[in-house]
């Protein structure tokens, strides 16, 4: 279980290779990469600036990963989240979840992303030709996180 908050970019293949070391029982690796879209709600995004709450960010993501480990059979997982100035097409976030079987890896990865979106203290500011503004939180993200609190496990 590793969390990295960094300004630098990351390489997915390299991160997975590192995470796999010493885990011959892994059969399934699910990764999520979030990237800066070139269009966001109609505005042309020139830049994105990501602010975070150092300390709490790491704690909250570790807590989400621990929950994922309690719910599914996971071997290991990794979250990398970039902060600072990002350009269109840049990678923002990486979640990698490894398991013996794919169902657990898919569920664990989506669960971590859904909670990260609603509980990890990051804030995005968009700089467009019309000026800079803070991105508003989405109702759909809250709903995505809430579905996991139903007690019925997914297949």
């Amino acid at each position, binding site marked *: 279980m590793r969390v990295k908050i960094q300004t630098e970019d990351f390489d997915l293949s390299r991160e997975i290779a590192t995470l796999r070391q010493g885990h011959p029982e892994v059969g399934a690796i699910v990764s999520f990469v*979030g990237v800066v879209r070139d269009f966001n709600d109609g505005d042309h995004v020139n830049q994105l600036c*990501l*602010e*975070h*709450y150092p*300390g*709490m960010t790491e*704690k*909250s993501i570790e807590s989400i990963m621990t929950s994922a480990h309690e719910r599914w059979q996971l071997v290991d997982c990794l979250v990398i*989240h970039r902060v600072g100035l990002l350009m269109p097409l840049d990678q*923002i*976030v990486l979640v990698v979840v490894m398991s013996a079987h794919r169902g657990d890896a898919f569920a664990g990865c989506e669960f971590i*992303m859904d909670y*990260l*979106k*609603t*509980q*990890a*203290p*990051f*804030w*995005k*500011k968009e700089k467009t030709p019309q000026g800079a503004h*803070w*991105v*508003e*939180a*989405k109702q759909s*993200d809250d709903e995505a996180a809430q579905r996991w609190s139903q007690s019925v496990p997914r297949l």
Partner: protein
Amino acid sequence: MITIIYFARLKEALGLTSEQLLLPDGVTTVEGLRTLLMQRGGVWEKELGPLRSFRAAVNQCLAQGHTGVKAGDEVAFFPPVTGG
């Protein structure tokens, strides 16, 4: 004494990244602290008022209005998060 930290839109609107505050008697929860800060009026009343949506954390854990606050705590106020 408690430390209060502000982030993102709140930090900019209040013009403040953090402050150290002597906790008055009777202020024992996040909601109590919020009411205290709103009494400063102006932008404080506007940003921490019921119309603006914001979140709080106590000692780096997400908190509710009824979450306890005591001397030595680190309390943070910020807008709903938008990472990922």
